[in-house]
């Protein structure tokens, strides 16, 4: 170790000598810094053993610009708790530094300290940007760097840096024309120079060279300022960076200026102001023009979003979509520079390289959610060739011309215009189409509608049977990007039948119940009907400006409404029969652990739509849940599905059952968004609820799922009174109606005509905690059985359809009147 100490002393003497001759610039400072590195490496090697650790150089030492009197800023980092062994290691490293009269700025941290970034300590975050591993396990620093190298962290650091610059400049009255300048802190001095470089490094490394002071010129300024600083440390013998009047003459002489002393000083200060002006202008330029980090390797500037590091982008084509996603999020375009860059390289990549894992497939679906700007971004992707390279199927219709009397655009543009139509519905940009906008907002997966639109006409690359060809090509694409089975089935359905609703609405008699039945049979469930209706609307609109007339809109809407009513009001009469083809297919595809008899016992007699509503794999799970069920048993499953939670309950029917389940969920402040309740002739009940966990109870509590299921069990068995639990929740300040929030009068419509077996209650009311519980409780209090329920929400409105009976038959007019009156009283209370 003594060799290293001697090395430091020697380096210090050499730096002093260089400073004395005005030569204490970058090279001299680097040599001095390197000698400290050698010493620290030796101290680290000789220190007692401890957990994996690292010495990190920070600040000026990290930049290898350590001056004679500068603090040696080091971070001692441990990959575990700091105990006696680690403390021994710290002492073995720091004590020799103090013995050598260094002023040491030290921090001792363990890796866990960096789990959360210290946003209230921007100076430390800034110091980390210059961090350099000196001795030990360098991987520890890489792990911290990964946490700091996020757009969010960069944005915070930049904000902090800009604030610190402002505060520092204010101390100097915001001018660099200081007669006695501080060579480190004054405007135009070293800190400004480092700040300009830091901002450029974090946002756009090429920024400096596009500004008024290029990198070599900044390098000259830095060399000049560092030489001066070395002289100041030599003269002051402490860390004082002020170039005072009394020092200026000696400094000018040491810097080698000639002439009379006064002339030397004037030349020195002339050069100083010239360099300070260059630094100041550079910093101002960088601050004004620095793009904003928006995602990994992406920044936003005036010309849009672009890649920061093209080399990084080149090796990660799977991240190119994020460029367009970021532009979409920021409400701006992708910069021409990046579009050109992609255009020049895109054909080097195979389609699979854009979607190597399920993460990219998820990102694609996220990107395709209809919102303002989607059409523009997709058009950019198409124009630069990325869309066609990601999806060769789409490339097949590039500028494809199909001559007919109606279409005004090429097939690719027609396709993109359909997506613009959907985007306008999402943003409610078209007056008079709010009813269609509402349908779009209802959809659980609008991105799958966009995906279907993107591929609905790709089969037009050939002249005949384009829908079948589009399906074939879309299936290939979905196989390639590993789309989930359920999504594939939906997209296939929409593409295969994308002309069906238009045909029925405009070429068939929509007053004919048979036409409505045909469409209802085809779609099976409301979600598919809504999607097909929207697809039809935007497909017609994108044909030419005049094709979608209000008259056509009206025809389409009426067909939609009639079919929707058939699906929601008349479905109860259509039950799964023993010889139902869907049931046979279900049996044929059953897994080994589920028997034919179990499937038949569970599914026979359920509404036929049950087979359309759930994928088979879900139905087998329902069958398993129904095993060995006895009165008061509750077999339930709770799991996360995308942004929602899904509770599946299988039990035997009993009074107030539905009301109690809803109440149990509401007592945890769960907001029920969608759901279905069904009963088979054996009294077996299947309830499926999708809800949002408003208070993040399940997320924040490790045992939250178990707690909820336990309460559910207790409520259904009658051991716990749900009304009491719920009352406390309803009185919570979190659920009080806020002043100024208008409520719409509830709508209750009773229908004794649509179904042979049931009285149907259609209810639309403001969504509120416990609403379903209260409504179904009133129904049960009237002695009615709730056999089937459809639950949906539309914005802040709850839309529920109950199929009910009383003593096994439809309600009388008097019973309906009594029930609806009480429901109105309850809802308006």
């Amino acid at each position, binding site marked *: 170790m003594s060799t290293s100490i001697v090395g430091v002393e020697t380096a210090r003497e050499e730096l002093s000598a260089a400073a004395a001759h005005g030569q204490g610039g970058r090279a001299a400072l680097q040599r001095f810094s390197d000698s400290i590195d050698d010493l620290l490496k030796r101290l680290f090697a000789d220190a007692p053993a401890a957990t994996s650790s690292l010495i990190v150089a920070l600040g000026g030492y990290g930049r290898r610009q350590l001056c004679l009197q500068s603090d040696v800023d080091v971070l001692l980092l441990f990959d575990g708790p700091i105990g006696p062994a680690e403390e021994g290691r710290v002492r073995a490293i720091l004590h020799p530094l103090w013995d050598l009269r260094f002023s040491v700025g030290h921090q001792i941290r363990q890796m866990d300290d960096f789990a959360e970034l210290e946003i209230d300590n921007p100076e430390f975050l800034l110091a980390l940007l210059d961090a350099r591993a000196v001795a030990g396990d360098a991987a520890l620093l890489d792990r911290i760097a990964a946490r700091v190298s996020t757009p969010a962290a960069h944005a915070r650091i930049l904000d902090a840096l800009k604030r610190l610059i402002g505060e520092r400049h204010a101390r100097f009255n915001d001018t660099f024309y200081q007669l006695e300048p501080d060579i480190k802190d004054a405007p135009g001095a070293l800190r400004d120079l480092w700040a300009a470089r830091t901002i450029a490094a974090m946002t756009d490394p090429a920024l400096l060279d596009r500004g008024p002071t290029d990198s070599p010129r900044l390098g000259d300024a830095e060399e000049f300022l560092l030489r001066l600083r070395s002289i100041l440390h030599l003269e002051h013998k402490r860390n004082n960076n002020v170039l005072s009047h009394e020092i200026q003459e000696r400094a000018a002489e040491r810097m080698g200026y000639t002439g009379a002393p006064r002339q030397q000083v004037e030349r020195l200060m002339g050069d100083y102001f010239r360099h300070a002006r260059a630094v100041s202008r550079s910093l101002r330029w960088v601050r004004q023009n620095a793009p904003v980090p928006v995602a990994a390797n992406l920044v936003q500037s005036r010309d849009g979003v672009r890649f920061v590091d093209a080399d990084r982008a080149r090796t990660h084509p799977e991240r190119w979509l994020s460029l367009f996603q970021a532009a979409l999020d920021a409400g701006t375009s992708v910069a021409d520079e990046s579009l050109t860059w992609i255009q020049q390289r895109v054909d080097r990549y195979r389609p699979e390289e854009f979607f190597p894992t399920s993460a990219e497939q998820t990102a694609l679906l996220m990107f395709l959610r209809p919102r303002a700007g989607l059409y523009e971004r997709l058009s950019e992707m198409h124009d630069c060739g990325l869309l066609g390279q990601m999806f060769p199927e789409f490339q097949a219709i590039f500028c494809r011309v199909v001559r007919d009397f109606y279409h005004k655009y090429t097939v690719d543009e027609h396709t993109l215009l359909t997506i613009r139509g959907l985007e306008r519905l999402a943003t409610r940009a078209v007056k008079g189409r709010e009813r269609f906008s509402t349908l779009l907002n209802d959809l659980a997966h609008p991105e799958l509608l966009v995906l279907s639109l993107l591929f609905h006409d790709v089969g037009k690359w050939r002249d005949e049977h384009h829908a079948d060809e589009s399906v074939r090509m879309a299936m290939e694409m979905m196989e390639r990007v590993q789309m989930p089975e359920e999504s594939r089935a939906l997209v296939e359905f929409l593409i295969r039948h994308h002309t069906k609703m238009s045909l029925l609405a*405009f*070429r*068939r*008699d*929509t*007053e004919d119940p048979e036409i409505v039945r045909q469409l209802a049979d085809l779609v099976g469930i409301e979600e598919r009907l809504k999607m097909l209706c929207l697809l039809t609307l935007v497909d017609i609109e994108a044909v030419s400006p005049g094709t979608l*007339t209000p*008259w*056509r809109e*009206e*025809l389409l809407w*009426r067909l939609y*409404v*009639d079919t*929707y*009513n058939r699906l929601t009001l008349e479905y109860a009469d259509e039950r799964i029969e023993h010889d139902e083809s869907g049931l046979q297919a279900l049996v044929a595809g059953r897994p080994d652990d589920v028997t034919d008899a179990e499937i038949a016992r569970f599914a026979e007699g359920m509404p036929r739509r049950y087979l359309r509503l759930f994928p088979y794999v879900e139905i087998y799970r329902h069958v398993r849940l129904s095993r060995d069920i006895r009165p008061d048993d509750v077999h339930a499953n709770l799991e996360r599905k995308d942004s929602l939670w899904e509770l599946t309950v299988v039990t035997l029917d009993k009074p107030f059952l539905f009301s109690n389940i809803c109440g149990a969920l509401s007592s945890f402040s769960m907001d029920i968004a969608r759901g279905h309740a069904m009963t088979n002739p054996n009294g077996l009940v299947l309830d499926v609820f999708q809800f949002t966990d408003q208070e993040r109870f399940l997320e924040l509590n490790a045992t939250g799922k178990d707690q909820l299921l336990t309460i559910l069990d207790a409520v259904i068995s009658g051991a716990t009174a749900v009304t009491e639990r719920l009352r406390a929740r309803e009185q919570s300040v979190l659920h009080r109606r806020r002043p100024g929030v208008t409520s719409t009068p509830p*709508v*209750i*419509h009773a*229908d004794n005509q649509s179904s042979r077996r049931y009285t149907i209650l*259609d*209810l*639309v009311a403001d969504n509120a905690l416990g609403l379903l519980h209260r409504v179904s409780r009133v129904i049960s209090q009237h002695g009615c059985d709730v056999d089937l329920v459809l639950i949906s929400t*539309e914005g802040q409105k709850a*839309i529920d359809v109950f199929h009910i009976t009383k003593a096994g038959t439809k309600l009388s007019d008097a019973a309906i009147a009594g029930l609806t009156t009480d429901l109105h009283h309850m809802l308006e209370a």
Partner: protein
Amino acid sequence: MKLIKAIVRPNKVDDVKEALGRVSLSGMTVTEVRGHGKQKGHTAIYRGKEYDVSLLPKMEIEVVVPDELVDDAVAAIIQAARTGEIGDGRVFVIPVEQSYRIRTGERSDL
């Protein structure tokens, strides 16, 4: 010379067009219209709420025919547009005094 104005179900336009072609009438004007006759429309319910659908979407076909073809044309329209249900539509026959060809300005008797 007569103007035949037929209000028909939207899905019957192609059938009517074909039927008129069979009696050698090819020129026509088709307009999307809304209205009601005896059918008067009805009240529909969507999500529990009633809404008025009294003005029903129909197609209006206008064709000018020589006097001697009026009966054939009316018969063709009726046969093609009829379903037998309320809402099949109406046919009006209106006298036409003069007709001019815009391209040449000359008077035309079809």
